[in-house]
């Protein structure tokens, strides 16, 4: 194993997330880390990765140093194969053309439900967050990868509001609610990589990031974690991954 390279939390997030994508997939990516991670995967090992953006972009190929400020900006269309209406690109998810959805999260719970709408009581919120955007559609209709910061207040037993459905109340509750496809596949944080138990649909630790202990992950999580039987240790970011990432985002727009 080579000497670990110094990196920020955002950088490890982007790099670990990018490793979850495989060549030939169709991925629907949100702005920020997802866009960056998908673009990184495309440059590093998945040249045939098809990236979709909410603004209506199919098969984007974002230029290094010219990251778009949102997934609805013209920069997203650079060297794209197609642009569609916003509703139509989401209908691709509903029809089933998309392998994986990929987004960030403000708050997540043990069943992978995401909240990006309210902190506190939705009727009289402490904070009104921006809301779902395409998040609800993506997480309702395909398999999800979420990349987010690992903080106790973000990893909660029950989210204040289910903006984007994970496995809802666990078990078969997702399918019973009318969402037979998709579901939470992976959660990536700067501490660990998580999957979900096949039966209970509870979040479980699949791999710890280098130098991170089970206790550290549990201490930063607001609910009791399940640990996989064969827990792995994540390969640290390689120099090649880091330099490519930094080439893509030289101004550290999304990796500060």
């Amino acid at each position: 194993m080579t000497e670990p390279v110094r990196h920020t939390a955002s950088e490890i997030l982007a790099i670990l997330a990018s490793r979850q994508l495989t060549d030939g997939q169709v991925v629907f990516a949100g702005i920020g880390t997802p866009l960056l991670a998908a673009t990184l995967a495309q440059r590093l090992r998945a040249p045939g990765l098809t990236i979709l953006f909410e603004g209506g972009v199919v098969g984007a190929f974002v230029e290094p140093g010219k990251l778009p400020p949102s997934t609805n900006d013209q920069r997203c269309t650079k060297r794209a194969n197609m642009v569609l209406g916003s509703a139509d690109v989401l209908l691709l998810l509903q029809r089933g053309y998309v392998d994986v959805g990929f987004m960030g999260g403000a708050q997540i719970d043990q069943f992978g439900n995401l909240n990006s709408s309210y902190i506190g009581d939705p009727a009289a919120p402490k904070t009104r967050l921006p809301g779902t955007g395409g998040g609800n559609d993506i997480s309702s209709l395909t398999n999800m990868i979420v990349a987010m910061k690992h903080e106790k207040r973000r990893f909660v037993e029950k989210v204040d509001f289910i903006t984007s459905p994970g496995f809802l109340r666990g078990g078969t509750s997702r399918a019973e609610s009318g969402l037979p496809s998709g579901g939470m596949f992976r959660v990536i944080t700067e501490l660990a990589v998580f999957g979900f138990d096949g039966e209970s649909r509870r979040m479980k630790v699949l791999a710890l990031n280098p130098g991170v202990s089970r206790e550290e992950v549990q201490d930063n999580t607001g609910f009791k974690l399940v640990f996989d039987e064969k827990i792995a240790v994540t390969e640290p970011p390689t120099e090649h991954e880091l330099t490519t990432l930094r080439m893509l985002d030289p101004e550290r727009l999304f990796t500060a």
Partner: protein
Amino acid sequence: MLDAQLEPYSRLRENLAKRDRSLREKVMSLEEAASFVQNGMKVGIGGSTMSRTPMAMIWELVRQRREHLSCSRCITSTDGDILFGSGISDHIITSWFAQGILWGLSKVMRHHIETQGKRYDEWSHMAVGMRFRAGGMGVPFLPIRSMLGSDVMAQRPEAKAIDCPFTGEKLLLVPALNPDVALIHVQRCDAYGNAQIDGLQFMDIDLAMAANSVILTTERIVSNDQIRRAPDQTKIPFFCVDAVVEVPYGSAPHECYGLYEPMMKHMSAYVAQVNSDPIEGMQAYLDKYFHAPKSWNEYLALIGMEELLDASQKGRSIYND
């Protein structure tokens, strides 16, 4: 309080039958076009986030101090701040509302919602699109497979979950949204309103078909001959357009595909100012940029030549390959 006071089909047809849909010139000024937007109306806003925002039209409505507009848009950014902050709107239907991902939460939005009681009705992005599409198709609803099971659905009794009469599967029927008026900014159109849109269309075509009237602002008015040479490039037909206003840089400080990118220095300064004080900061911004200028061109001059040229250079670069 539901936003979805679904108009019966008969009313929708009557409204349309009354519109003058003949092939006629309808070029006018921003001031004149604003007369299509009356207090209390449902206003659909074209573009998305920071792209092809009909900013010049919003600017004019703020200057004319409209009130109680109920606005809908696919993704809302600083246009939403201004709608709330200026007082012209107290209700926004959208799927996402902040100033833009780069700047985090909008303190302006938070202020007006958390303490002022203004409404932001949240729908999934696809649901907003399907609501406009149903409106444009002349049907009362369209079925979707998202929102189900989430609190986004729980908060929207305007939508109806059903068991599919064909398959028994659960579906959500989202109600049509037919705004009284749509504000849409395009790269070019003719004097009749036949519009071409380059790049991302967002929900603008469905919105144009759904609305009971449409105000087009355009970077450029071209001849009808030019339109007729490539009829497969027309995205909005003239007969659903009621006003055409030529406004170069009509989305500034937001972007217009192929012409200019967002004016990021202005945007960052705006965000810093209004988030530091969502009331006074916003008022000072509106006074300086919205109320003080004598014309849209004066507003552009305040944004500055440097920003306009830089944004234009970047905007055109999409065609450099």
